[in-house]
């Protein structure tokens, strides 16, 4: 600072000195030469006063004449400037102010804040170019990559190219895209107002070369080579893999440990890509370069290479996943047209009951993650969010909430046994309809003709609703509204032991959780409609057969059935291990048992026997499973809706003796559980066991996502065939 002031003073002195020297030299010179002209000038002054040309302006010459006379009295030289002395002072002051203020300003810029501007100049000159690191692969349990990378040529344009009709027309011709589309893409500011706009991602090399060769004809257009995601199996496992894209504003703002995200990076937006983004993303390469104003790199100062992201190996088996995806597609859209098959959507979830490894996770309708790479075009987004598309982006396994229907019966049976409202020998008589509460409106069994006499085992095997209505009535009669011996949440407590109202904790973001209706919940839910808020007998009978207000996700039911099969609730997981760029395993997933439901083992084995009976004693179901030679246990379910078709459920595990895999299948508006969902459960379960036993002959192929082809789904009349 002191140094700066000194410099300033020196400069000021120097400027003054220059001025002084000039003036002095000038004065000396003048004084030498001026003397000779003096007398002449005096003469002239006199002469002017009497000049014959005086008449030009009487007023003016009079005035000047006066002054001149006055001045000649002093004996000085008569000059026009003498009368205007003050104006010369003003001119001098003006010059002084101008040069003074410029000097002060320059002093403050160049001396006082020079260091800031110097660093600004360096910021201009040097720039750090970050080369994005290729993302790690995502592989299945066998190590087969199901998400890879490839290089793609992207044609980008500056936002202002939209003003240049010629360039847009040329782009349209070269890339074979209609001019209107080119304009629309350049106008699309969804990736940020300042960012270059993607005119064509994955352009043909030939077109890219043409643009590069004729750069003059394409001002503002650039081509970038990018490593983008490659999906060899298309839409397979799309929901669990997720898609990648440019980071959102929030992602850019949040600071991740050890990870820098820049606006043109690729980040996971959903599924595994998002969940394990930190592992997959790798480290940016950095090049510090000098650039000119156009961004041309003039020289490289330093460079570090990008480090590819780690490979994430999943517990998914591509072969099983393929079968699950294919089975759903074949059923729901056999010709690729949504709405022409059975149901409008579906989910299949397969898990290893011993350690929670997810073998397949499938949701339909589905999408191809490749279409979502980079930015999502508006028309694609509209297509996927249309009502007729039935939410292809929704992962029905973890976010689909369905009425559990008869798949609830094993758990409510345990409650019945627990509280003694049923035992192995209890018998009920099903006449096809039931009006235990004497309301006058009979509740029907799905078998309208009635099952006749049956015990609890037969009740589960035949899925007889009347048996469970009777049990529900017992709970009601002994509850607070009756004798008061049991709590009003006696059944719910048993259901809650199986976490049917809790998210399973799978390593995917945004998992939903089911709902077990309780009086408390109902009061809260209907608080504005007190007439509806009361907990009634009908709530018992609805809940006990998994209808009414009951909601579960396919993953919750599967985990709960796993707990019936093994006695333990495991935490489902997708991650098997992580391998770094060198191929070394750096992370291995440790299976996690969340808990063991506190249930009498005797009841558990009774329920298992009953579930085995469901498979063996129902003719069509038995056939479905025998086809694959499966020794499975399971339960069908058909969720009834007032306004749309039934949802078909089937949950099963196998082998019965030594359970390995559990599968849950739900087909939205698909119809009867055993008829529609059962065959898929059998097919997927067998594929999983084949893969486990090493006898699988399936080789996965590319699958298509939702194509936009859809018709209105014709709902069949509600007719349960549990």
């Amino acid at each position, binding site marked *: 600072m002191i140094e700066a002031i000194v410099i300033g003073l020196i*400069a000021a002195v120097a400027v003054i000195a220059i001025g002084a020297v000039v003036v002095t030299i000038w004065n000396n010179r003048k004084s030498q030469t001026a003397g000779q002209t003096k007398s002449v000038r005096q003469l*002239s002054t006199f002469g002017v006063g009497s000049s014959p040309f005086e008449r030009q302006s009487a007023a003016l010459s009079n005035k000047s004449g006066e002054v001149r006379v006055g001045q000649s009295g002093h004996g000085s030289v008569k*000059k026009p400037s003498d009368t*205007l002395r003050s104006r*010369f002072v003003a001119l*001098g002051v003006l010059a002084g102010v101008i040069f003074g203020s410029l000097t002060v*300003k320059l002093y403050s810029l160049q001396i006082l804040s*020079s260091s800031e501007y110097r660093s600004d100049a360096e910021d201009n000159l040097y720039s750090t170019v970050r080369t994005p690191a290729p993302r790690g692969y995502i592989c299945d349990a066998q190590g087969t990559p199901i998400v890879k990378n490839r290089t793609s040529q992207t044609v980008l344009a500056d936002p202002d190219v939209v003003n240049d009709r010629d360039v847009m027309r040329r782009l349209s011709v070269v890339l074979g895209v209609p001019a209107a589309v080119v304009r629309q893409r350049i106008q699309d500011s969804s990736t940020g107002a300042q960012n270059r706009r993607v005119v064509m991602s994955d352009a043909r090399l030939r077109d890219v070369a043409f643009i590069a060769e004729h750069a003059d004809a394409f001002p503002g257009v650039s081509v970038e080579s990018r490593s983008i995601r490659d999906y060899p199996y298309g839409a397979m496992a799309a929901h669990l893999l997720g898609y990648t894209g440019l980071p959102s504003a929030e992602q850019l703002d949040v600071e991740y440990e050890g990870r820098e995200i820049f606006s043109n990076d690729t980040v996971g937006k959903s599924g595994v890509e998002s969940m394990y983004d930190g592992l997959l993303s790798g480290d940016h390469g950095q090049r510090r370069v000098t650039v000119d104003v156009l961004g041309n790199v003039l020289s490289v100062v330093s460079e570090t290479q990008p480090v590819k992201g780690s490979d994430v190996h999943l517990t998914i088996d591509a072969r099983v996943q393929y079968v699950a995806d294919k089975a759903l597609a074949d059923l729901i859209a056999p010709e690729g047209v949504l709405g022409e098959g059975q149901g409008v959507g579906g989910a299949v979830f397969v898990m290893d009951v011993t350690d929670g490894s997810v073998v397949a996770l499938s949701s339909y309708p589905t999408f191809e993650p490749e279409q979502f790479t980079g930015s999502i075009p508006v028309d694609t987004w509209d297509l996927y969010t249309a009502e007729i598309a039935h939410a292809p982006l929704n992962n029905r396994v973890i976010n689909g909430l369905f009425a559990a229907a008869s798949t609830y019966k094993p758990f409510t049976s345990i409650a019945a046994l627990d509280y003694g409202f049923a035992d192995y020998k209890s018998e009920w008589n099903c006449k096809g309809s039931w009006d235990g509460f004497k309301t006058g409106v009979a509740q029907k069994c799905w078998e309208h003709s009635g099952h006749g006499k049956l015990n609890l085992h037969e009740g589960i095997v035949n899925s007889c609703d009347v048996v469970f209505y009777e049990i529900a009535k017992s709970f009601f009669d002994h509850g607070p509204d009756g004798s008061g011996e049991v709590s009003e949440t006696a059944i719910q407590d048993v259901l809650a032991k199986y976490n049917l109202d809790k998210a399973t904790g799978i390593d995917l973001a945004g998992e939903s959780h089911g709902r077990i209706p309780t009086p408390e919940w109902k009061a809260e839910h209907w608080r504005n409609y007190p007439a509806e808020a009361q907990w009634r007998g009908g709530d018992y009978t609805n809940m006990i057969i998994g209808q009414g207000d009951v909601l579960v996700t396919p993953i919750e039911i599967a985990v709960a059935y796993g707990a019936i099969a093994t006695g333990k609730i495991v935490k489902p997981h997708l991650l098997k291990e992580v391998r770094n760029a060198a191929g070394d395993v750096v992370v291995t997933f440790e299976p996690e048992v969340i808990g063991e439901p506190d249930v009498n083992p005797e009841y558990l084995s009774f329920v298992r026997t009953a579930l085995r009976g469901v498979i063996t004693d129902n003719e069509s179901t038995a056939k479905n499973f025998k086809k694959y030679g499966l020794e499975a246990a399971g339960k069908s379910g058909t969720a009834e809706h007032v306004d749309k078709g039934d949802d078909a459920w089937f949950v099963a595990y196998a082998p019965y003796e030594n359970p390995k895999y559990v599968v849950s299948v739900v087909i939205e508006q698909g119809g009867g559980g055993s008829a529609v969902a059962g065959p898929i459960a059998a097919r997927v379960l067998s594929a999983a066991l084949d893969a486990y036993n090493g006898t699988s002959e399936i080789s996965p192929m590319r699958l298509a996502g939702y194509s936009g082809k859809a018709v209105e789904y014709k709902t069949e009349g509600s007719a349960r065939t549990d």
Partner: protein
Amino acid sequence: MPLPQISSIRTPDRSLQGAMNTRRSGGLSLPMPFFAIALLLVTYGLIVCWSATSNDPDYNFTRQLVGVGLGAVCMVFFYRFDYRHFANMTTILLVINVALILSPHLPIIGVEAKGAQSWINIGMQVQPGEFAKVTVVLYAASLLARYGGTLDDAREYAKVVGLLLLPFLCIMTQPDLGTGLVYLFISAVVLVMGGAKPKYLFITLFLCVMAVVAVFALDEVIKNSTGEYKLLKQYQRNRLLVFLDPDANTTAEGYNLAQAKIAIGSGGLFGKGLTMGTQSSMGFLPEAPTDFVFCVLAEELGFFGAMLLIGLYIALVASSIRIARNCDDLFGMLIVCAIVGMWLFQILENIGMCCGLMPITGIPLPFVSYGSSFMLVNFCMLGLIGSVWSHDSSLGRKGGYGS
């Protein structure tokens, strides 16, 4: 009261021509310090200009040298020419002015560039508005010289102001506000130095301020009715906004100003050395050799380089004022003052805009900026001042014309 009429001007007596050349015939035929300073300035300017153009193939330093050569010829011509011939040519000067300034509107030679009809193409592109600066100086000085240093008649004053506004009005048809402002400043200096009554000057200043306010107000009204500004162009608004709030602007003008300040500031005390300026040679600085040439100087030669230039300017202005002070002819004095005014304004505006003191306009820096038109003009100005100095003679004045 007979008013001075343009037609009543007399020509100098030819028999006295020889007697007029008092200084030219003497041993000292040049105003030495003045021309020494001018020589230094031109040399310094050429060095900076060479550095600024050395990295930019769009500019040709040889052309600048040609401009200097031509300028030297013009200077000698004006120097030897008795400036007093111009005193009676007020009408002719006005006609030349109007013709020059309006010539870009002519169909064949007129060239439109950057939204303004400012150029003509006569084998090479020239800006007649620049050359008109010389004639505007002579025109304004000859107009005021008639009043002999006192202008206190309101009607006369109004007439003079009206006549002085003509070149400005003409150039605004191109439009070229920057050059127009130079004309206005020249006119203002001549008015002040020509002895106009201070009261009138203040009233004029007040009216000018009101006129500017009125333009802005009218523009708002036009915008409200038609939806867009008509009087001031958007870039002019941007420049003004940038000037008022340099940080909050992302337009091209804001970028230019920011880069200019970075160039000047990063120069520091001694600069980065000739041709080593990164801001200019890497192209961050827009229009480096022309409008922003001062930034190149400040970046490459630092505070000392900038002070050297300012010192030379001070010396030039001081010696010019000196000549004016010692001139015993009002017309000659007014010419010198007008030229000094022009230089002052161009220096203030050009350096001022580079460091954020003034709004951005495209006004070149005398003797430094790339561009042969303005170089020629400056040499003509030097020649005129020399002419005033050398033809300063009581005999000449007396015999030539009364004032």
